[in-house]
């Protein structure tokens, strides 16, 4: 466990997510307890089917837990309406997806601007904030380009700028380097590191150990449970795995 200092951002208590498939009940999350503090840099790892995507969806307020308590920024989210959840997503959560999810017919600037359309900013503020956000990820020069004129790394930078434009309490990244080659991956991870240094709280889902190495805390899931939750330097499984690979 990392030092429990700073502001508490996320508090999960006994979160369960149960899917019904026919008569069968699948426990995608089976009693998760988790606390995340401000400026933490966390990797969520696990095999496919371990529940890490479901955990991301619940953390991102895209999905509701079947039972349990989820507090974000001191606000109980379990009782919020759909519209209120949308607002929470808009103001407090930034998403970065594996396949970027940029809108092809819009310029980088417009793509970054998009979440602000659903907030209460005026046109000018929107432009300004979107530009600032693009500059922050190092794409200040390419704001007029469309996604098909950008490289994979640049696309993911635009997506990160979009996630950051609302100043979210937490940045959720789902396999952000999954579609990138190793060199570009590294530069994107460096960008995450930089955002972390600037004070951003980041949760990253990944199954790659070298990606998880960038983070400060690694949470491993198995069958909907947290099976290990350790600081990066204490994470023996990962190290062993990495060493295994090196051999």
């Amino acid at each position, binding site marked *: 466990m990392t030092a429990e200092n700073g502001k508490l951002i996320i508090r999960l208590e006994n979160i369960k997510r149960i899917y019904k498939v026919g008569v069968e009940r699948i426990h995608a999350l089976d009693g998760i307890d988790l606390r995340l503090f401000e400026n933490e840099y966390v990797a969520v790892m696990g095999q496919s089917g371990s529940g890490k995507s479901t955990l991301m969806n619940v953390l991102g307020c895209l999905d509701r837990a079947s039972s349990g308590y989820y507090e974000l920024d001191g606000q109980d989210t379990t009782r919020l309406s759909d*519209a209120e959840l949308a*607002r*929470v997503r*808009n*103001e407090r959560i930034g998403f970065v*997806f594996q396949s970027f*999810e940029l809108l092809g017919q819009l310029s980088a600037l417009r793509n970054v601007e998009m979440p602000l*359309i*659903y907030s209460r900013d005026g046109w000018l503020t929107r432009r300004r904030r979107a530009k600032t956000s693009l500059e922050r990820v190092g794409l200040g020069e390419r704001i007029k380009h469309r996604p098909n004129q950008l490289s994979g790394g640049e696309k993911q930078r635009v997506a990160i700028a979009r996630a950051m434009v609302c100043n979210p309490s937490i940045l959720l990244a789902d396999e952000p380097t999954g579609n990138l080659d190793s060199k570009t991956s590294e530069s994107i991870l460096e960008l995450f590191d930089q955002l972390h240094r600037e004070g951003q709280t980041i949760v990253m889902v990944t199954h790659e150990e070298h990606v998880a190495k960038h983070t400060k805390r690694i949470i491993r899931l198995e069958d909907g449970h947290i099976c290990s939750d350790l600081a990066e330097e204490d994470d023996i499984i990962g190290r062993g795995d990495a060493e295994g690979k090196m051999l």
Partner: protein
Amino acid sequence: MKALLSAPLVFVQLLYQSMYLALSQIWANKTRSLLTTIGIVIGVASVTAVIAALTGLKAQILSQVETFGSNTIIVQPQRPDKGPQSHLPWWNFRFKAEEFEDILEHCPSVARCSRVSYTGQNVRHGERSVKGVQIVGVEPSWHEVESRPIVLGRKLSMVDETRPVCLVEPQLRDKLRLDKDCIGESIRIGHNTFRIVGVIERREKMELGGDSREDEEAVVEIKFFLRRARRIKPGDHDTFRVDSLKSAIKTFNKIALVMTLVAGGIVGISLLVGGVGIMNIMLVSISERTREIGLRKAVGARRSAILTQFLVEAIILCFFGGLVGVGVGELLTLGIAGINPLLEKTYIPVWAIALSFGFAGSVGVCFGMFPAIKAARLDPIEALRHE
């Protein structure tokens, strides 16, 4: 209080966002949007053109009718459809001048009466001649029945009863190359020479009005009077017909209304087809943009925002179609007016334009609603996984 004030503001902002999104989407898919709206364009164009043609036809017919006055009653001989007389040649039924002599005494509802006979003749003045001019033989009282203004000279009067005098219309005067002031000149009509005493306007200015019940009474009186004057036995068919112009106008208005309704029905169907086109393209668009919808929801778009976005897109498409449709309708109307002189008065009334836009808008709302609801209900996680 603050919440109450901010509610409409939020709505306006939502609408503004939706229009912004819809316009950029339509602009991004220019060709598709254009093709989609063709159904609406055709629908709206045909609404406006049909309404314009009908209005024009009505105006034209009414203006012709108004040359007489609307409380004029026309009596003409007619061979009965049935009975032994139906085989006799038409000239057996011609009116005789004396039949109408004491009509004013016997028909209290008839104010004035003029016997009129029509014929076509060649008219000549010096070297110039005009063929097939309509010649109308009238009595002095005709001026009171059909109050066409005299431009020059005088009306016909009692003293003219036995004299060969005539009035000419300005058009005929010009064709014959007569002077502007042609009073006193002689022209030959057929084989007889007539002296011109005045120039008469082609068409009179009519004030509509009068009581239509009075008209009906007059019609009944005239029928009764003529049957006696023509010695038609009870049970035999009339050998004449009496038409009140007002009732003719009424009948025409009824026919025009029915025609408008029928045309409206046809046009309604074409708008329906256009609407289905819009719905189809919106459904296609939504399934294409499922991931986009998922993304928008993930970054904080509420259901209402997605709903409005797609609804506004459909409505804008329809309004755009309506706009183009009114333009095409205007062109069609000009074309119609050019082809047939009977329809030269064709124009698009403002209410028809309003109606077209109203239709287009409601088609947008009706047919855009289902796809928009479908989009708004998408689950963001599912939508983001969509291929």
